[in-house]
């Protein structure tokens, strides 16, 4: 298998809504940035991997040939890869495989999604429109008709049973995760929110699904993110700072098949991480990673991710928060970009953005947000709103 590197990234500010641009415009803008950073044009691209998670949100089924046209990549091989809100990790896996296999040398990876063109006219709310619009992403036979929302799903299947089995995390620890992410977002010019909050603010916000409160839930946004991936030979031509994707894996593990053993666990994250660690040669993640980016769809899933990624024992994730391990300046800072809670979130793009931010950190180009590098490795993890689609990638600078 050939080595694969990221040689250019293109990210945009997170906004709750880009009224000025259509999804095609966002996709093109991110692509232009990534191509420029890589020093190539669209004509140099062999293959395009599209990460577009939700067609109903775009008001367009089969959007990828339309994006191919707009990109000017007529005639290239391409593929749209989906995996729910974790689709960008599934797409990254495919993009890496495309090069590792020898089938392509230069892949443009383009993640895009508009979340906010929905609108509910009777309550005059975009938020209500979005939640109604993507409600059929839940199992329409067995879950959607009885489901109040995504945070309740994650709370009932993952968080509550975890607390009952393992004694943690506490509400205060989850609130601290939100406070941490808001603080990290404050210094990220691309983040959607620039506010400082307190633990009391988080605990006093609406109970969405006890013990998950509104400020423990992620934002929703419009966003696009592009990356140029290249084979080893091509990467060394294009840049002196290639960032290698040294491990990537996904795991589809349905949380809906609930049993005494499965509830309260993100088995899919654990399995994907094991495979990614094996590919990257990592045996002791807390010592071998400089930073992580995980999906804080709710603050609880961030803490569960620390555990399933093997940074600590089950039930001990809250301790990593209390002891500052995952804070900025700590041993393995988590969600330096501000996380999905404060930086922004939309399915199929968030983890791509997180990957691009780790690339920036590993290239030591993060300016005032630069974290200290020891091993030169970072990890990205993503889950979807069911916790059933999971992806993990390891990024590494040249030794």
């Amino acid at each position, binding site marked *: 298998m050939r080595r694969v590197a990221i040689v250019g990234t293109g990210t945009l500010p997170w906004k709750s809504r880009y009224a000025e641009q259509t999804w095609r415009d966002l996709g093109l803008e991110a692509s232009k940035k990534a191509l420029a950073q890589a020093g190539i044009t669209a004509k140099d691209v062999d293959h395009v991997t599209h990460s577009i998670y939700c067609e109903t949100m775009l008001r367009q089924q089969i959007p990828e040939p339309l994006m191919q046209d707009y990109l000017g990549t007529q005639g290239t091989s391409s593929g749209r890869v989906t995996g729910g809100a974790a689709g960008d990790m599934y797409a990254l896996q495919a993009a890496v495989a495309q090069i590792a296999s020898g089938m392509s040398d230069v892949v443009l990876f383009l993640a895009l999604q508009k979340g906010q063109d929905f609108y509910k006219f009777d309550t005059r709310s975009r938020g209500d429109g979005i939640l109604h619009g993507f409600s059929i992403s839940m199992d329409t036979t067995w879950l959607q008709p009885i489901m109040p929302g995504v945070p309740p799903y994650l709370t009932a299947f993952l968080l509550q049973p975890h607390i009952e089995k393992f004694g943690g995390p506490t509400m205060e620890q989850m609130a601290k995760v939100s406070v941490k992410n808001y603080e990290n977002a404050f210094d990220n010019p691309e983040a959607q929110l620039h*506010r400082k909050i307190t633990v009391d603010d988080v605990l006093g*916000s*609406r109970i969405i699904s006890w013990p998950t409160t509104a400020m423990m839930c992620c934002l929703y946004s419009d966003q696009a993110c592009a990356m140029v991936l290249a084979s080893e030979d091509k990467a060394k031509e294009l840049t002196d700072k290639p960032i290698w994707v040294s491990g990537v894996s996904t795991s589809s593990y349905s949380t809906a098949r609930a049993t005494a053993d499965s509830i309260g666990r993100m088995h899919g994250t654990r399995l994907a991480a094991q495979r990614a660690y094996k590919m990257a040669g990592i045996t002791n993640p807390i010592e071998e990673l400089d930073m992580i980016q995980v999906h804080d769809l709710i603050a609880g899933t961030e803490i569960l991710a620390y555990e399933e990624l093997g940074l600590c024992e089950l039930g001990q994730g809250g301790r990593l928060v209390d002891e500052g391990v995952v804070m900025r300046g700590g041993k393995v800072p988590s969600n330096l970009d501000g996380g999905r809670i404060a930086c922004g979130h939309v399915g199929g793009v968030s983890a791509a953005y997180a990957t691009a931010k780790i690339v920036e950190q590993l290239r030591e180009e993060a300016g005032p947000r630069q974290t200290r590098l020891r091993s030169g490795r970072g990890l990205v993890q993503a889950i979807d709103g069911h916790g059933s689609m999971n992806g993990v990638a390891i990024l590494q600078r040249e030794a």
Partner: protein
Amino acid sequence: MLNETLSALALQLNENRGARSLMEAFPKTIRVEADDGSSLNISFASGRMAVAQGPGGEPDIIVQTQPLEFARVVRGELDYSHLMAHGTLRVTKGKVSDMVLLNRILWITKRGGAT
């Protein structure tokens, strides 16, 4: 005191375009009943909020609560759901989901708003 807090907020909301739009979509009357027997009524009509002491006419929604605690909700310190979860607020007439819409209106001018 709750009356004053609500009346001051009404002045603010009636001048705010975002609030007026939400209030237009919520033409309801709410009676707030305290445990000491006193009550006040909040009415939304033609996109404007009015507050008056006393039970008012037949309301769409009746909320039984402790006025000091409810004032914290009005001031943006605490969401209605915490009061309900701990038994300090009950909706005895109308839909609980209308409390979500009311909370949204009450908080629209506050930092962070409400969903």
